[in-house]
């Protein structure tokens, strides 16, 4: 009676303590795994003992020792089999097999270092590029501020005026607190010596408490520093500045440093990893906003009112929704704005400033509340679109790398057919083989992922440095967080599994006997579009798409760069100069006239420096387009933009803008009572004087305070600044005192004869001597300024080119691999052909023909994909280009040429290899 029914039934009494049992069982399994060698020894000894006992019993029944032993073995039934079953019963089989697979795979990979390196490198490049871009996007776009409860932070628009902030600060119905901050450059001296310009942050009283950021040492700036304007000369150090400048010496708390000539006490140090609320920047010093007039003399004694620049954050009271808060605050804000606008605009707008109009303007100025968990960022606005584009590019790159890997794996699997067939014949299960091959590709992918992480780390820092050219250095928290690491791990694993499956399946699905007999040989695939050829075509197509993209962005950048800016970028230094209260010059020291005297004094001194060819002042720089804007109507009825900046004489010659008619402004035009004059650019002449010379004609736009008629005295060449990608705007250059505008900050432009870097310190000293309260801005060459403005275009062009080149390299490696492999596989056939009379040239042609075929198909597919992508994403890409259509024939043609050239070179090597085949050798080896 053998059948024992009830195998599937439960044992209710034994289910109690199920969990305990499982834990105990798991412990047993682990123990068995760890002590495996000992277990094997004991099992062997146990079975040997068993055999002895049985042998003795058989001998007792009358058999001789040899026969007894044989019978004992029979009764036990196959020693190895029993051992296998015991091993199976240990419950560690899966883990043991996994361990074996890993060890075997590692050995195999070590035996073929070239292959392993090729795969690890190409995967590493692909994964690394993706991780780098993703990491950047994470740091710039998504990462939340390192503060308490970032999701509870709400921003009031992008920027908000300080007085408006005071209205919010006073609210206690819907808000649980509000804080304001603004970045300012600071003129710092430590122990009497002038320091480089420091990045400062003016903060309101609740800044640190609202964010929940405790000081790392000393105390944080708080409400006690927010009482009396000008009465709190205290400062907090940023962590980076404390490290760089004070070597993390805690005794600095309590010392004094000088800002704009006044001593400030260091009261505390900000914690590490806190870098203000603007992503991409890191303040060196934190100063209470009540000290604003002392550190930012240009703004006079009140932080800028209507057009304010503050970043304002607030938290809501419990139970209040953002919409409730926004509408509750609307009233007080509008009241304030109305009052302000009323007093400020009425003189200028006269009777156009009706209460209704003012109220409408006020409503428009209230931005409501927006979530601010990720803080503010100018950098974000600049690079978010290029970065998204780049993500697409690197995604394509990864695809190419994966295709390469898959091809390499396929090729290897085919080469190993004999080995796999032997293993199958020896009894390995097909699934076991596949598992082992999969483990190999996963290990390769993990290797690639590790290389990728290293590449990403290096690339990210390089990228940030690159983006920082020409502007204040960008500071980002680039530590890889879980998101980025998880992303990398996911991509690596997915790659390994995805592109290891197909080769693994193919490798184990072939006929045993024919392979062992060698009938198929090593070549494997013959005619027909097998996966290997398809993969190479895909690689070629995708790299063509990337090359086209690279061509587009590179041409766009070149066009921008070569655009006739009509100014000389390399020999001109630019320094911003913002003396006391120059922001509203009517309130400046002794008014506009006083400022003018200061500027003229500065110009005289700087012009006297050795090495200086000429010096002048202008209101604007390439990164900062200041000046009055108007929208007048041309005689032909068109409404155009008009830019009216202030300049000093010799500006045009300093910067290198040629004069095409008339004369430049002269010293005599600068007096307040001289006749109002102006210089215009060619676009102005074209728009307003339609071809005729405007010299001597009236200005057509009157903005001088004296309202006397103004006369045009000269015309200069068009020159683009600040908005390089836009059209040139009509410009009317006016002397400083003759403009009725409100601002008085200027930028010093100095043309030098030698190296600009040599003269920068002297120029800064000169500015300091002229007015010690002027905050020190960094002196830069015009070239650096321009580069800083073109950050997007530079980023795209450089990276697209780099990635395009890498993609091309990968695709060519793939092509080379395929062709070389095919030559090896068809060695016998080639031998036969040559024996039958084919020349070496014919053989070379045969290989090249294959390459050209693949190129043709790949190229066509690539162009089609490129055009389709351009159609789909056209609007996105157009905004990033200058002077080109998205479907640019030159770029496409150029990319094709490059692809064909490089790929042909890649194909020549295998072709030569084929030509070098010795027919007799090949026929003998078959």
């Amino acid at each position: 009676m053998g059948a024992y029914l009830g195998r599937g039934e439960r044992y209710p009494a034994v289910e109690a303590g199920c969990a305990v049992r499982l834990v105990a069982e798991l412990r047993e399994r682990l123990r068995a795994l760890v002590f495996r060698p000992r277990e094997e020894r004991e099992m062997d000894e146990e079975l040997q003992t068993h055999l002895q006992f049985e042998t003795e019993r058989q001998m007792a029944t009358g058999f001789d020792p040899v026969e007894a032993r044989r019978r004992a073995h029979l009764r036990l039934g196959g020693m190895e089999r029993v051992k296998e079953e015991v091993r199976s019963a240990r419950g560690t089989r899966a883990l043991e097999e996994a361990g074996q697979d890993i060890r075997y795979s590692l050995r195999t990979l070590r035996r073929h270092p070239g292959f392993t390196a090729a795969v690890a490198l190409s995967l590493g490049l692909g994964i690394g590029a993706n991780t780098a871009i993703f990491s950047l996007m994470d740091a710039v776009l998504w990462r939340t501020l390192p503060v308490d409860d970032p999701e509870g932070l709400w921003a009031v628009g992008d920027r908000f005026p300080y007085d408006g902030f005071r209205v919010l600060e006073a609210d206690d119905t819907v808000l649980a607190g509000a804080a304001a901050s603004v970045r300012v450059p600071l003129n710092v001296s430590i122990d009497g010596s002038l320091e480089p310009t420091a990045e400062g942050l003016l903060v309101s009283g609740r800044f640190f408490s609202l964010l929940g950021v405790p000081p790392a040492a000393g105390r944080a700036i708080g409400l006690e520093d927010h009482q009396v304007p000008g009465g709190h000369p205290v400062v907090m150090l940023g962590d980076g500045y404390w490290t760089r400048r004070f070597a993390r010496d805690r005794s600095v708390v309590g010392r004094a440093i000088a800002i704009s000539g006044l001593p400030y006490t260091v009261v505390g140090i900000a914690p590490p990893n806190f870098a203000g609320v603007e992503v991409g920047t890191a303040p060196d010093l934190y100063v209470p906003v009540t000290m604003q007039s002392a550190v930012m003399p240009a703004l006079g004694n009140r932080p800028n009112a209507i057009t304010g620049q503050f970043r304002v954050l607030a938290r809501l009271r419990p139970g209040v929704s953002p919409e409730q808060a926004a509408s509750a605050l609307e009233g007080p804000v509008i009241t304030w704005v109305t009052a302000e606008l009323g007093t400020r605009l009425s003189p200028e707008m006269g009777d156009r400033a009706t209460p209704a109009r003012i109220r409408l303007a006020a409503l428009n100025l209230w931005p409501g509340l927006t979530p601010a968990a990720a803080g503010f960022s100018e950098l974000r606005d600049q690079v978010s679109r290029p970065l998204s584009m780049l993500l697409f590019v690197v995604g394509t790159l990864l695809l190419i790398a994966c295709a390469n890997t898959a091809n390499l794996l396929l090729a290897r699997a085919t080469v190993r057919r004999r080995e796999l067939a032997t293993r199958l014949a020896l009894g390995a299960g097909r699934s076991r083989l596949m598992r082992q091959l999969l483990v190999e590709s996963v290990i390769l992918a993990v290797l690639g992922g590790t290389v990728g992480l290293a590449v990403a780390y290096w690339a990210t820092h390089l990228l940030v440095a690159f983006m920082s050219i020409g502007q204040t250095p960008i500071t980002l928290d680039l530590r890889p967080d879980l998101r980025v690491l998880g992303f990398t791990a996911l991509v690596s694993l997915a790659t390994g599994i995805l592109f290891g499956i197909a080769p693994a399946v193919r490798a184990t699905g072939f006929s045993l006997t024919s392979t062992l007999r060698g009938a198929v040989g090593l070549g494997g695939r013959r005619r027909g579009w097998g996966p290997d050829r398809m993969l190479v075509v895909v690689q070629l197509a995708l790299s063509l798409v990337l090359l086209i993209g690279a061509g587009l962005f590179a041409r766009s950048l070149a066009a921008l760069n070569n655009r006739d800016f009509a100014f000389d970028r390399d020999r001109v230094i630019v320094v911003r100069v913002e003396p006391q209260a120059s922001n509203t010059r009517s309130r400046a020291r002794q008014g506009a006239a006083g400022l003018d005297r200061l500027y003229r004094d500065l110009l005289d001194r700087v012009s006297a420096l050795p090495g200086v060819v000429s010096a002048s002042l202008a209101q604007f720089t390439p990164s900062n387009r200041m000046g009055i804007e108007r929208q007048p109507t041309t005689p032909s009825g068109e409404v155009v933009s008009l830019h009216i900046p202030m300049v000093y004489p010799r500006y045009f010659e300093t910067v290198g803008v040629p004069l095409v008619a008339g004369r430049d402004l002269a010293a005599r035009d600068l007096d307040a009572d001289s006749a109002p004059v102006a210089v215009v650019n060619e676009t102005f002449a074209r728009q307003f004087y339609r071809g005729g010379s405007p010299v001597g004609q009236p200005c057509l736009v009157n903005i001088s305070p004296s309202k006397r008629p103004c006369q045009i005295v000269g015309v200069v060449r068009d020159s683009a600044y600040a908005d390089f990608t836009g059209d040139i705007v009509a410009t009317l250059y006016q002397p400083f005192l003759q403009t009725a505008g409100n601002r008085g900050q200027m930028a010093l432009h100095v043309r030098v004869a030698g190296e600009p870097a040599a003269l920068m310190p002297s120029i800064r000293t000169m500015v300091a001597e002229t007015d010690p309260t002027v905050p020190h801005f960094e002196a830069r060459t015009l070239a650096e300024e321009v580069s800083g403005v073109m950050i997007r275009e530079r980023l795209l062009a450089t990276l697209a080119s780099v990635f395009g080149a890498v993609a091309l390299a990968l695709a060519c490696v793939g092509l080379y691999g395929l062709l070389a492999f095919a030559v090896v596989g068809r060695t016998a056939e080639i031998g036969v052909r040559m024996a039958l009379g084919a020349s070496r040239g014919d053989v070379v042609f045969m290989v090249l023909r294959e390459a050209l075929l693949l190129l043709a198909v790949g190229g066509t597919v690539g162009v089609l994909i490129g055009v389709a992508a351009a159609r789909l994403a056209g609007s996105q890409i157009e905004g990033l280009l200058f002077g080109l259509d998205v479907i640019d024939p030159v770029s496409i043609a150029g990319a094709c040429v490059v692809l064909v050239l490089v790929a042909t070179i890649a194909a020549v090597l295998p072709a030569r290899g084929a030509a070098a085949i010795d027919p007799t050798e090949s026929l003998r080896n078959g």
Partner: protein
Amino acid sequence: MGFGRADLLQGTLEMLVLRALALEPMHGWGLAQRIEAMSNSVFEIQQGSLYPALQRMKRKGWVRAEWLQTENNRRARYYSITAAGEKRLTAERAQWERTSGAVNGILQWKRGVL
């Protein structure tokens, strides 16, 4: 088809091993002999299936093993039953009686009896 030496399925073997070990601890070979003797030689134990079964039971905590000296001063691995094993034996025994009772019932079922 004759009813010669019968074969045992895995679950039954475990139950018999537990029963044998409940009487006294034994090493593997001794266990095989004992079960054969206890069954009046009806069951011929596949010696090769004994060791995997013992390994499984050891993993599940129903038996424990230790190396001891036999009467002839040889080293052998002795298995003994644990408390959990005793519990398992009781449960298996109850299940066996239920099942075999049911099979007996079916075999003795006469026509017409409802």
